[in-house]
């Protein structure tokens, strides 16, 4: 990590995770989902997390979001420990989670509170434009495609101007072309707003295309295996030699880390 940049950057937005562990207690026994996780994300960074299914990526994100508590070990944002969910951390789930009975506009406004009507309308409009859905303010979620619905979810997550955006496989349910489009969209938004991004993904290309660094996790229990910096200029070319080399490196991490390497064949 660029030590000087991190030191000079506004510390107020730094996200410090752990060291923390997480054990789920079930009737049948207990599952250690995370072990000794440490992650420092300087404000404004884009971090990708990849790892095999069940390695605890969602759990980690949910702990950062405050939806789940760790066994001990804190998450701090700007020096303040995280206790429960908060508007400083936006979440985008794998499914859009739009409320089907509200229009697109109302779904975005659902995230806003204690604001005058005019201000709510202004912010909603601004964020609809941001995700390129100006014409769909009055549509209902069932009238949208999967990609459009996920854009609305992005707008809803951003409308409160969170300091960190947590994305849990946000494009996993989309087709390959839409996914690439959405990746470019997220990149554009990040470059415009410089919100800290923590992206969990199954897609190694997506992780490299977007992240300043790629965190590789291994499973049972979930630990951070390596953190690979991505020192490529944006927008990144998926077919450039450096990109391909990096993809190979991450692949190699997988083949030695994951119990199910065949899950990551490309």
């Amino acid at each position, binding site marked *: 990590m660029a030590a000087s940049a991190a030191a000079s950057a506004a510390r107020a937005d730094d996200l410090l995770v752990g060291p923390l562990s997480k054990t789920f207690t079930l009737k049948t026994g207990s599952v250690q989902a995370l072990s000794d996780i440490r992650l420092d994300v300087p404000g404004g960074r884009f971090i990708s997390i990849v790892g095999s299914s069940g390695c605890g990526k969602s759990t980690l994100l949910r702990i950062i*979001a405050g*939806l789940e508590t760790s066994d001990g070990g804190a998450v701090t944002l700007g020096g303040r420990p995280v206790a*429960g*969910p*908060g*508007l400083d*951390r*936006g*979440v985008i*789930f794998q*499914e*859009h*989670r739009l*409320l*089907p*009975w*509200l229009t697109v506009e109302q779904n975005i406004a*659902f*995230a806003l*509170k204690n604001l005058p009507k005019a201000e709510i309308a202004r912010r909603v409009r601004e964020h609809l434009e941001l995700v390129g859905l100006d014409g769909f303010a009055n549509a*209902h*979620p*069932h*009238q*949208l*495609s*999967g*990609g*459009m*619905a996920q854009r609305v979810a992005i707008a*809803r997550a951003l409308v*409160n101007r969170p300091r960190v955006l947590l994305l849990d496989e946000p494009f996993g*349910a989309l087709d390959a072309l839409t996914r690439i489009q959405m990746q470019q969209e997220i990149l554009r938004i990040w470059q415009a707003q410089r919100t800290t991004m923590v992206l969990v993904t199954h897609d190694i290309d997506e992780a490299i295309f977007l992240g300043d660094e790629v965190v590789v996790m291994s499973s049972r229990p979930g630990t951070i295996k390596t953190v690979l910096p991505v020192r490529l200029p944006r927008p990144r070319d998926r077919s450039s030699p450096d990109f391909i080399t990096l993809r190979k490196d991450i692949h190699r991490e997988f083949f030695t880390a994951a119990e199910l390497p065949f899950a990551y064949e490309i």
Partner: protein
Amino acid sequence: MTGGLAAEAPSARRAGQQTGSGAAVAALRSPLAGLGRLALYLALPAALVAAWQTAYELGYIRPILLPPPTKVAGAFVELAVSGDLFRHLGVSLLRVLEGFAIAVLIGLPLGIGIGLSRLLDRLTDLIIQLTKPIPPIAWIPLAILWFGIGEAGKVYIIFLGAIFPILVNTIDGIRQTDHRHVELARVLEVTRGRFIRQVVLPGALPNIMTGLRVGLMVAWICVVAAELIAASSGLGYLITDARQMSQTDQVLVGMITIGAMGKLLDVVLRAAERRLVTWKSTFSGR
């Protein structure tokens, strides 16, 4: 995902037209087919009535046990012309609507409260579970003791019939709130009031509407029982009175009128449901 499903639906429908039954179903959806749809809707009942009349003409049915449709129609006209039918209908309708309205006014808020509060649920569950299976008819002796033989006792019986479907479905609807939406509300720090208004209640609305429809139906079922209490008017009274006079045709007129009124009010509630719940695309058969 919703969008994906929505996108697939039309093509699935087109594919359906290829097959034989698919074509028939598709024909039902074309705008020209309104008349055909009505015909299909009435075909079976009409056939039943025709078979019933034929069976009578052929001497298979003794009219004292089951008078033919023509005789029932005659009794209907007679009761309609004399105005008796509408008087009875009006009285029963008022009782049903009163009992149902009270059931809604109590059942809906109570159901919402119980659905939202574990404490209230714990406090009331046993009472509700024990009272629910008691048929409203069994309440008649107490209803007479408490309310006398006037209107109040009859409305009480109808109220008892209507409240449980409303209560139970409302509680169910609220309990079925999608946990993913609950999580979303937590992440967005949505206030409890807004959470209830914008997440819980809209999500429970389909169930609540089902509860209202079933409640109204049970209210009609209970009107005959309610009118066993010293009534001198009402469709239930009409039926009981005609039975004592062995006028089976009038019994049938009373029965059919209750059925028709129940259907009519259900149509109203279903129309309301369709207007309120536009976002839900459900399976409508194929």
